[in-house]
């Protein structure tokens, strides 16, 4: 559905993007993560056909957006980080403006607007002025505008920034709804927990360079260099450390908060052998679990904390 090929963007002597390659299949939801100034918004604006790349190109549903931006635009729904709203119009008038701008036939507009309002749960605010809506509602209205023309690809640039926790949860629920509708979504954010349980793919970018991209599970394994196991024992002594260090499928072994953290490098799903080995050597194991690494850990691990 979306493919960027060696995407590079220069602003004068400053290179905002260095040969970025991304791939999203239909139905994918990719979290586009990076610190402020990493090049997320530039990438999204290029994909949205609002900026021209210095070199490289982007394909949306097989259409080269650099040569045929007009053909690609109906397929794209774009929600900018600084979302634009006309504050002196009513909610339905705002959506009617964009419905007409997207050439939705006049006799279908009313129904389309109603559907979009239902999805974002703003039906009761239909006659309200945009300027009177709360920030969360304005964000949802902008999202309603984005899905109005039923695009295949949604580009959401920091959709939950500046929202309170309640509004953020509402936006998250809304995005889950869109995922169920089969939309392909590229969502940028630097607030990682909001993406963790939502995306099936992740791309991390820093200083305009793609550091890592792929499915969340793959990247976790790749970045950790194996599965981390957290083992709680009645007594942690040197003999336990020796047993673990002596195993071929164990990499790093360290103690943390009274537990032993083991990096398992063996075949996936066969880390029970580590437990068997401990029990066989008479170790009293209280708990044995796979360590959960979230996106935040992953992000901190792969980025250098450099803000370009």
């Amino acid at each position: 559905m979306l493919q960027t090929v060696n995407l590079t963007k220069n602003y004068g002597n400053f290179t905002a993007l260095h040969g970025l390659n991304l791939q999203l299949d239909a139905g994918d939801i990719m979290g586009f993560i990076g610190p402020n100034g990493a090049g997320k918004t530039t990438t999204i604006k290029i994909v949205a056909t609002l900026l021209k790349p210095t070199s490289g190109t982007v394909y949306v549903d097989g259409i080269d957006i650099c040569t045929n931006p007009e053909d690609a635009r109906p397929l794209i729904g774009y929600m900018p980080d600084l979302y634009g709203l006309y504050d002196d119009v009513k909610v339905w008038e705002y959506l009617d403006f964009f419905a007409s701008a997207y050439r939705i036939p006049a006799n279908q507009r009313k129904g389309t607007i109603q559907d979009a309002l239902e999805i974002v749960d703003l039906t009761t605010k239909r006659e309200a002025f945009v300027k009177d809506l709360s920030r969360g509602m304005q964000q949802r209205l902008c999202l309603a505008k984005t899905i109005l023309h039923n695009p295949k690809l949604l580009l959401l640039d920091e959709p939950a920034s500046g929202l309170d926790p309640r509004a953020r949860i509402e936006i998250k629920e809304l995005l889950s709804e869109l995922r169920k509708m089969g939309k392909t979504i590229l969502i940028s954010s630097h607030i990682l927990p909001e993406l963790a349980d939502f995306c099936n793919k992740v791309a991390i970018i820093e200083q305009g360079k793609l550091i890592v991209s792929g499915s969340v599970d793959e990247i976790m394994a790749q970045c950790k260099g194996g599965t981390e196991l957290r083992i709680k024992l009645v007594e942690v002594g040197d003999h336990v450390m020796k047993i673990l260090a002596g195993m071929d499928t164990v990499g790093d072994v360290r103690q943390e908060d009274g537990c032993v953290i083991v990096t398992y490098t063996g075949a996936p799903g066969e880390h029970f052998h580590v437990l068997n080995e401990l029990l066989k050597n008479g170790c009293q194991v209280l708990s044995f679990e796979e360590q959960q690494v979230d996106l935040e850990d992953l992000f901190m691990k792969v980025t250098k904390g450099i803000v370009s």
Partner: protein
Amino acid sequence: MAFASAVKKCIHEKFYETVYDNPVIVKDMRTRMRGAKGFAVIACYLAFISITLLICTSASVFTQVTGNSDSKFGETIFQWLMNIQALLVTFIVPALTSGSVTIELEKHTIGLVALSRLTTGRIILGKQLSVFFYTLVLVICSVPLASIAMMYGGLSPAEIAISYLMLIAWAFLISSIGVFWSSLFNRTITATLMSYVSCGIYAIFSYIVGGSSGHFWMMFIPGQPQTNVMPPFVGLYPAWAPVVAFSHAEIGSMHIPIPIIAITLHLAVGLLLLCTAIMHVKYRRDDMSLPVRILLVSISSIVVMLICSTMIGSLPQSPQAQIINGMVSQLGSSQSSGNLGIGIVGFIALGILSSFVAVFATGPIRDKEANVFRQSLLSWRKIFRGDLRGSIPFMILWSIVLYGFAGIGLKLNSALSGAQGFPNVSPWGNAGPVNQVMNSLSDWTSYAQIGIALVVSVICYSAVGILLSSLFHSRRSAFVLTALYIIVSFSIFPLLYLMSDWIKDTPIWQLCALGPALPMSVACDVTNSLPSFWWAKEDSWLVTSLLNVAMTIIVLGLASLSAGKYGGVKED
């Protein structure tokens, strides 16, 4: 039949999409007319007109300016009405239009609009038409006030209708100026300032120049007002509309109504500005080079033709010719008005063309590896495209068309004054070896000589623009330096002329030939008291042309080298 219905359907669809179902118009009109705000503006507009009208007409009655005639009184009321409305439209409309595009940038909505299926043309036209329609409402609301003037007599409905049409065309132009500046800048305050400055300058210019030329005409040529013959641009400012509603300009044997000239010119310039604005909308720049260039060439050529045919040249009894002759005689000229006309026309044409060289001859060089020299001179297919490669061919075409229309104007002018042929006196006598040959060929010799110098100078200016575009990464730098070069080149002769007492014995004086002002000044014959050149003064056109040809070759050669080395102006 099928073709007719297809055309009808196409026009209907275009009208439906552009005007009736244009979301920009719908939204802007909706918000503008919502609540009491829109109606309050209309009420204030009418109240201001009514009160001012009352004060002005009362003053007229008390001072007996209009005498006791009711018909004169009616005419006075109507003239005041048009004066006030012209002023109000000039003040109100820029305030409504100058933020039309910049507000979208400031509210970050431009990206969302640009991504929709709205074309840039619909966006710009929507912005302009929404204000224009609102102004129409204001203007139409004042019609009942005009009917008061009608009650006193002396005014026909046709006169009122023509005057209102001229005011509406004025509103169209003013609203287009606002949208044009709004598309060029990122901030509303800058766009508003530029809109007011440009509208103000044009309003004052059209009021004073148009009005004064009308008065001169009436004063100097008794009988002209009775025949309603007036200079062509007398009715540009709508305040003059009641005076010129039934007047016409005499172009050769043609009688062109003054209102037609004003309305057509304002609509055409308005359209030109809108097309230019379409090329500047952020994120969605549509290439409107073809209509922009066609409109620019057409408008400038027709305006120059109208100027030449009525106001300049061998029309000895025209007030303009008398004034110009008077001014020139003070400079020591003894030239006949026919030759003077050629010189002045050369200056006007060069002035118009030079003003636009920096616009058309600067920009990114697309094919950096190719030979810029060959590209620049032979890319005639790109003449109506927004491509630097077509800039020199376009400037050549424009120069020829513009100067050609100027010649037609002078020819018509000669016919009007009863002179035979054009120019019927050999312009520079028989002095100079080239002139001796040229003069024997045709009466058009001097016209052709100035034309050659003009075209070659414009080519050289364009070449300088291309060279600077190949050197700088920023178009703004190339633009500014090209404009500076043109100003220096244009003023080199006047500057050296002023310093002639000090430099007359030095070779510096010969540098006069670098600027195109020399041959035109020779044509105007203001060079009698000047020091001698290395060549016969009458051959100045040839020397200037040859120097400019040599400069063009050198400059384009350098551009070929620098384009590959430095890359030149970068694309947006």
